[in-house]
Structures are given as structure tokens and as C-alpha cells.
């Protein structure tokens, strides 16, 4: 996976509301180099809304979201082709086989050698022997892996994963993180959300969200050093505490 020079995700002053609810407010985020960028925070903090704005699935109420310099809501086909997306829900067709699901997305993305790309994607997620099984017959972990194969079959430059490890057992979660690191090392920007705050320590950079605001944006080591906490979960709680005390003063 190679990154073009213009590979950049740029979010500037993003605000998104749903009727009276403000899901995101004043969010800034720039990603220029291959990295695993974690969007961390409790449920309802705005992670999925930020991801959907990045993908152009939601229009910002205010501010801008640009991918490769293009507004996310008006990306051209080559830019879209550079993005892989794995939603929070399973988002695969249960009445199709594993292979048919991956082949469908390969075709949507215009992959040239479809059969080889599907084989590669299935091998990467360890489902090469389950390709002809219908998704409805698979375990939850295998369905998530099918979903991941659909997201990477076209060899994307930016991989956007919404809660990719939710519902997985610890061994499978560790396996997933190994894959994310491999892709990052190969030049991919991996943007993922997680509400497992401890897990965010696997990222190169963590953006902590709370109530639609960016509470902090730094490397896991810097967080630990700044808060004096051993793990990121404790560090995040310390951040929240400091933030709340500052707000009440």
C-alpha cells in the first residue's frame, strides 16, 4: 500500500449537530503520514459521527473535512477508491458466501484482478478456507473478519475502521492489531475508533473525544507521561478529572 504525496486527512473546526444535539464541536484533526490514529472516548463521544464525516456520509454543520484536498462530501472516484471502510455493524450480506461478499466489494472498487485480490484479502484475515461458507453460518469473529476483508480487498491508502475489535475475544483482538500495524508499516493511514480506552495504547496517536470535543491529541507515551498513569484508561480518567476541575473553576 503506497501513499501519494497528497495523502492527507484534514479536519478543521468541524461541527455537526442532529436537531438539538451537538455531536461534534470544533474538532480539528490532521493526518499526513502513515500511522494508526485512534479515536478514543466513551460511547456517545462523537467517534462514529467523526468517522462518517471523514467518509462524506455526513455533511458538516460547520467547518471542513478534506481528504486528499477534496471536500469529503464531494470526493471523486479515484479518491473514494483510496479509502477502505469497515462500519461498526457487521455490514456484510448474510445471504452471500464470504467470497461473494468480498468479490462484490472488489467489483464495486473496480479491482482489476478480482480473483487474486479476493484470495489475498481472505488470506490476510485468515478465512481462506471458509470462502464458500454463507456468512449467516459463521461465528461473530469470522463475520468481523469478513467485514475487514471487504474493507481491504482493493488495497486502500486510508483505512477507516469503526470499532473494529468490538465483540472479539482477546486473541482475535491481538491478531487484528498485528494486522493494523502491518498495514501501517506498509504505508497505510489507519484511522480507527475504539471505546476500549486501554486498547488505544496500541495506536501511534490517540485523539480522545468527549461530548463532541477533542480533549487531547497525542501519542500514548506522551499521555502516560503527562498524566503519570500506567495505562491509557487511567490516563484518560485523569484527563477527564483535570478537565472537569478546570471547567468548574
Amino acid at each position, binding site marked *: 500500500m503506497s501513499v501519494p504525496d497528497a495523502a492527507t486527512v484534514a479536519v478543521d473546526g468541524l461541527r455537526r449537530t442532529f436537531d438539538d444535539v451537538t455531536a461534534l464541536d470544533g474538532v480539528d484533526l490532521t493526518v499526513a503520514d502513515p500511522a494508526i490514529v485512534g479515536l478514543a472516548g466513551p460511547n456517545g463521544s462523537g467517534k462514529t459521527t467523526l468517522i462518517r464525516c471523514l467518509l*462524506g*456520509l455526513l455533511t458538516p454543520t460547520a467547518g471542513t473535512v478534506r481528504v486528499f484536498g477534496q471536500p469529503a462530501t464531494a470526493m471523486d472516484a479515484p479518491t*473514494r477508491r483510496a479509502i477502505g471502510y469497515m462500519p461498526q455493524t457487521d455490514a456484510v*450480506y448474510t445471504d452471500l458466501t464470504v467470497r461473494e461478499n468480498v468479490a462484490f*466489494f472488489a467489483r464495486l472498487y473496480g479491482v482489476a484482478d478480482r480473483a487474486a485480490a479476493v484470495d489475498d484479502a481472505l488470506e490476510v484475515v485468515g478465512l481462506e478456507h471458509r470462502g464458500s461458507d454463507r456468512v449467516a453460518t459463521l461465528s461473530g469473529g469470522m463475520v468481523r473478519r469478513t467485514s475487514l476483508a471487504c474493507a481491504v480487498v482493493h488495497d486502500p491508502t486510508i483505512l477507516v475502521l469503526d470499532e473494529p475489535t468490538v465483540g472479539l475475544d482477546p486473541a482475535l483482538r491481538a491478531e487484528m492489531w498485528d494486522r493494523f500495524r502491518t498495514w501501517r508499516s506498509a504505508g497505510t493511514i489507519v484511522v480507527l475508533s475504539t471505546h476500549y480506552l486501554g486498547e488505544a495504547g496500541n495506536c501511534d496517536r490517540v485523539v480522545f473525544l468527549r461530548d463532541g470535543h477533542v480533549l487531547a491529541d497525542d501519542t500514548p507515551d506522551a499521555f502516560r507521561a503527562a498524566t503519570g498513569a500506567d495505562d491509557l484508561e487511567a490516563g484518560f480518567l485523569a484527563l477527564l478529572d483535570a478537565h472537569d476541575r478546570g471547567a468548574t473553576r
Partner: protein
Amino acid sequence: MSGAGAVAGRVLRGLRGDRRTLALVLVVPAFLVYLVGEVFPRPEPIAPILLAVFVFFLTYLLTSIGFLRERTAGTLSRVLVAPVSRTDIVAGYVIGFGVLATVQAGVLLVAGVVFLDVEFTHGVAAFVLLELLGAATALGLGVVLSLFAETEFQAVQFIPLVITPQVILGGTIRPVEDLVWYLEYPARVMPITYLVRGMEYVVRGEGTVTRFWTAVAVLTAFSVVALAAAVLVLDRAR
């Protein structure tokens, strides 16, 4: 249009793996036509109505629930992120369900001939054309209305609201022209009215050729509007 081909292929592959839906689409209409043929001593007068309503109803049912599933399962978001235009996505649905509607029309054709002694006075091609126009309208309607449902149960709840009044008012029980004015005007903007009118001409030779082509023109307009609305509302479906 490769995106449309991919979506159409996906729709048809999904049906292949769903035997219950296949039976609903292919076997149940033939069985119901058989029952009507057994119960009515002279089934010919109601044959155009049955043939008009079945494909419309089943296409509406399958697309509204299918599209709702796409939306709630997250696959629609995924497809919308891909480099595929909204028009391609709806075109894929039209091709997929168009194939299905054609097969269904074939089943109804045979069932109509065997169980109802239908003669298709003005030819089989006009019959298939009407079925496809009805299916295209039902597809657009199904996609649009599925946006207002959050569960499959809610999607089914639209049937008594959207389909049943059309069946009652659309010339099935008494001619639209004989309805009281406040029912006649709504009936004149309902697709099933024109489907029934067209079928009466094709199946039993009732009405004039002008009346038939008017029905075809109106159904074509309904199809175009319904499918254009489906493309427009895809943005809301995200």
C-alpha cells in the same frame, strides 16, 4: 455502469441463497392464481387485476424490506463510500429486480393460461412491458418509503396504507370513472389504476389502444419519478 452490474449481481445472488423468498416470488403467486381458478366459476374478469397487482405488490415488499436491511445492516453506508454513483446503485436494483419481475411475469403468464384460461388478447410482450413498468414504480416507491421505517415490521405496516387503497380504488371493484369525485381524483394518481387499465386491454381486449398507450405513458412517468426520487433520497439514507 459496472457498479450497477455489481449491485444487480448481488441482489440476484442474495435471492438465490434465500429459498423462502424465491418460493414467495415464484411459487406463491402461481398457487394463489390456481386457488382463484378453483373458486371462481368465471375467473377471467378478475384475471387482469391479479396479474396487475402481484408483481407490483411483491416488488414493493422485497425492495422496501431489502433496502431497509441494507440501511440498518450498514452495507448501504459501505456501498455509498465506494466509487459508485447513486444512479448506479438504483440502476443495479432495477436490473436485479427487473430480472426477478420478468421471471415472475413468466410464472404468472403460465399460471394465467393454465388456471384462469387467460388468452392475452393483445400479446405477451405488452403484458411483460406492463409488469416491468409496474415493478419499476413499486421499486422506487419501496426504496423511498423504506426510509420512513426503522424495522421490517414498520416497512410492512406501509402496505395497508400504500398498496391496499390502490387495490380498492384502482378500478378493481368498480370503474374509476364511477367513483365519487374525492375518490376518483386520488385514484387517477395511483399506479395500480393504470396497471389494471393496461392489463384489461392486454388480457381481455377491453378499452381502446389509445387508453392502453395512455396507461403505458402514465406508468412510464410513474417509474421515472419513483426511481428519480429513490436516487435523491439515497443521500438521506446514509
